[in-house]
């Protein structure tokens, strides 16, 4: 019994130059905010950008960006619609606002389905918003998308950093490229993350301060781009990733 979907997945990414999975292990550290804002910043710099939300049980990039009223087109597969210049794909097109109570193997199957049927146009960057943890979705993305690179997000909390180190070990063991680590929600001077990661062979990209006004910008790409969060992220990626 052969699953034919597995044979077309890499073909679906043949017109995508760089694929970045935004991950970090722990929940609530700002992965989705980073992924959505990163996509906005790249699009602002006129890069052809896609955003794929693979957090099937807790999708949120559509809320962060304010995506409403658009739906993929069917053209020899499905073509993600554009939102604010970003080709945007999310399971919410099919679930609406309903919860999706999926077990691990079903999440895997849904990921394979989405990857096999989504036809991305020519892109400079595809940003993938990953769910928390290093379970099925992370392993599937590594298994199925051969050119994926990881951008890891953490916070000054030791709890987040301990989880991050575990994910980093998995990625290193599997030989996956890690672009670097981003410290989010910094509240004190200096960087606890930078010093903590000194012994790890991975680039520290920079820190983003806790942005108390970020919540007010949710749902509006224009307002999001005006936040301190986006400004700091933009500066970091411009210096370290572009």
């Amino acid at each position, binding site marked *: 019994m052969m699953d034919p979907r597995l044979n*077309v997945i890499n073909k679906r990414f043949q017109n995508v130059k760089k694929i970045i999975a935004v991950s970090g292990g722990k929940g609530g550290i700002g992965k989705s905010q980073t992924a959505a804002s990163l996509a906005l910043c790249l699009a602002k710099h006129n890069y052809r950008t896609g955003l794929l939300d693979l957090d099937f049980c807790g999708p949120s990039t559509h809320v962060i960006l304010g995506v409403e009223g658009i739906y993929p087109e069917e053209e020899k597969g*499905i073509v993600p619609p554009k939102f604010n210049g970003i080709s945007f794909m999310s399971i919410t097109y099919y679930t609406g606002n309903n919860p999706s109570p999926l077990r691990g193997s079903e999440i895997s199957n849904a990921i394979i389905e989405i990857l096999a049927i989504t036809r991305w146009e020519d892109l400079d960057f595809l940003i993938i918003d990953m769910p928390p943890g290093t379970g099925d979705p992370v392993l599937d993305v590594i298994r199925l998308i051969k050119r994926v690179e990881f951008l890891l997000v953490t916070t000054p909390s030791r709890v987040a950093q301990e989880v991050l180190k575990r994910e980093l070990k998995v990625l290193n063991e599997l030989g996956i490229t890690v672009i670097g680590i981003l410290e989010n929600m910094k509240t004190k001077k200096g960087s606890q993350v930078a010093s903590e990661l000194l012994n790890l062979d991975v680039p520290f990209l920079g820190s983003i301060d806790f942005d108390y006004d970020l919540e007010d910008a949710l749902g509006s790409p224009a307002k999001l781009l005006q936040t301190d969060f986006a400004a700091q992220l933009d500066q970091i990626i411009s210096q370290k990733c572009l």
Partner: protein
Amino acid sequence: MHEWALAEAVVETVLKEAGKENLKEIVRVKVMVGELQQIELDVFNFAMENILQQGGGALSMEKISLEVDKCVLRCKVCGEDWYYSDSLQDLSEEDSEAIHFVPEVAHVYVRCPRCGSPDFEITSGRGVWIDYIEGEK
């Protein structure tokens, strides 16, 4: 035509596997289509035919047979088995279409008829797969 993407995957996989096995001739291919995905077979066949015309190599339509696999669901909470076709009457056209694109979305719209749980297993009839490829070396 979402069927096109799946048809393309089937053709590519058959040709790849035939190449791996050094088959000079493909005699028969059996493709199973899970009922849950509600593939439109006419559209699926049309897509395969078109893709094969663009370069099917040793594969042609008359060698492919399709069979629909009945979809059975099993509740993980109470153990009830039931046919997806029995749940279809409770689904709107939009719900059904969503399941067509991503079959796991069934967990969003379908509930166990006995206990009402969304925690069920798709025991058969999910997706599209190649059951076997017969050929000559």
